[in-house]
């Protein structure tokens, strides 16, 4: 059973988001890292890039699979987790602690389009 944190919002494409002020921290879920297996590379956006809800902002690669990352929010990337450049396996170790990007959101109400923990748990069960 994969871990799901109660205080986060989720996209059905398996990204999580945590909003603090107008800064959203984004990562992939424990379920997603588990499904991918050993992660060997995280393709991250650059600081300053604009991201749009539902559109891809990067990718996560394992040896024999790759998964696009879809942004759960719209806005401007203000920070990326540079530790993942050298140690992508951190995502396997703790997918919630090892976020991928921080976004200054342009429309906080977009979060209402996302799932809460209970709804996301159901997605994972299917």
């Amino acid at each position, binding site marked *: 059973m994969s871990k799901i944190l109660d205080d986060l919002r989720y996209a059905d494409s398996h990204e999580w988001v945590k909003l603090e002020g107008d800064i959203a921290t984004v990562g992939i879920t424990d379920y997603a890292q588990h499904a991918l297996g050993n992660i*060997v*590379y995280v*393709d991250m956006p*650059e600081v300053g*890039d604009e991201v749009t809800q539902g559109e891809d902002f990067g*990718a996560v*690669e*394992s*040896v*024999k*699979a*790759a998964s*696009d990352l879809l942004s759960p929010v719209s806005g401007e990337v203000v920070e990326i987790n540079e530790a993942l450049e050298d140690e992508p396996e951190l995502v396997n170790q703790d997918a919630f602690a090892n976020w991928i990007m921080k976004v200054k959101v342009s429309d906080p109400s977009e979060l209402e389009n996302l799932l809460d923990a209970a709804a996301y748990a159901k997605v994972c069960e299917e």
Partner: protein
Amino acid sequence: MSDKFMPHTEEDIRAMLDKIGVASIDELYGDVPEEVIYREEYDIPSAMSEIELRRHFNELGAKNKSLTIFAGGGAYDHYAPSTVAHLLARSEFYTAYTPYQPEISQGTLQYIFEYQSMISELTGMEATNASMYDGATAAAEAMFMMVASAKKKNRVLISDTVSERVIRVVKTYAKFHGVSLTVVPEKDGVTDLDTIYKELEAGDVAGVIVPTPNKYGIVEDFTGLADNVHSAKGSLAVFADPSALAVLRTPAEWGADVACGDGQSLGMPLAFGGPYLGFISCSKSMLRKMPGRVVGATTDADGKRAYVLTLQAREQHIRREKATSNICSNQSLMALYATIYLSLLGKEGLKEVNALSCDGAHYLYNRLIESGKFTPAFNKPFLKEFVVKTDLDMAKVNARLLENGIMGGLLLGNGLVEFAVTEKRTKEEIDTLVNLMVEG
């Protein structure tokens, strides 16, 4: 139904049909609409025995003429040691597929690793892929790499001093993929760097492609180019002759991010245009944008050194329409060719090949100028290929050369003629060529 490639006896077929539970092979096609079953005779000859086939090929071969070649234009008549063809004929190499099962493909994987290492030595770049189709398609892929790397920028500049046959292909790829390609005009036979710098000011240039040596054989000076391209947040690709890189300043030394080109010059048969070998090398930062197969070193469960296809998540079989390219294969056997060739020639041999070719070319150049019938076209440094100008009726001259078993220079128009000389050409052959041209 048995023939030498299909071993089925009547008894075999009967037993197999019984196992399947059908009465005839035709029944296996029972789901095919009757109207598309092809019942006519194929419009091809009747089966040939080996004796007849050899005869047919010899008859065709007799309609070709093997010439003493003084032309290049992207295909060079270099020498290959006897050993290369012998080793290449080992069927453990040529009857294998792409090395998907590394445990039984270490031979292929290791030579690709060695190939990558050697091309990286020649280009000076950190990473090289397992090879591409040819130089022109490699240049097109280099264009895509630079666009992908620049993210939002979509314009690429290519110097008009890159071979026209390469530009033609790059243009085709650009047109369909939607890359805006600008051909930067030449100036006195070399890339017009000032025009490039002006174009860079627009801020929309993802990358620049320049050649070494260029289509006239000239070794161009790209001092300052990489800095300018990089400060405009673009990438630099150098289209290079890998053989020449044993002596010429390398793409890495010019500050390039990508190197590409055609490996035919590494002793490969002219073979009427192919198979040749495209190569792509890049800096570490571009690695994930590189197309095609890549082999990496690793270890097995017992800690033994081994090789494996790696970085596969970029590729078409995993990423489908999000892949860096649609290329699945490489020119693996030609990469093996290059690896064996470079192993034999080695560090000193490849320099010697260049020295001999370059000396032969300069000897021919000097003789042509001394003849008074040819004048220098550009007065720029060259290696094994060069262009001169003449008032002679070169079409007539070349026809006369053909009668004497010689392929003369390529006619570039406006009285420009381009000659290439490799280590295979002797002083006597060059003297004969010059005499036939100037004396008629």
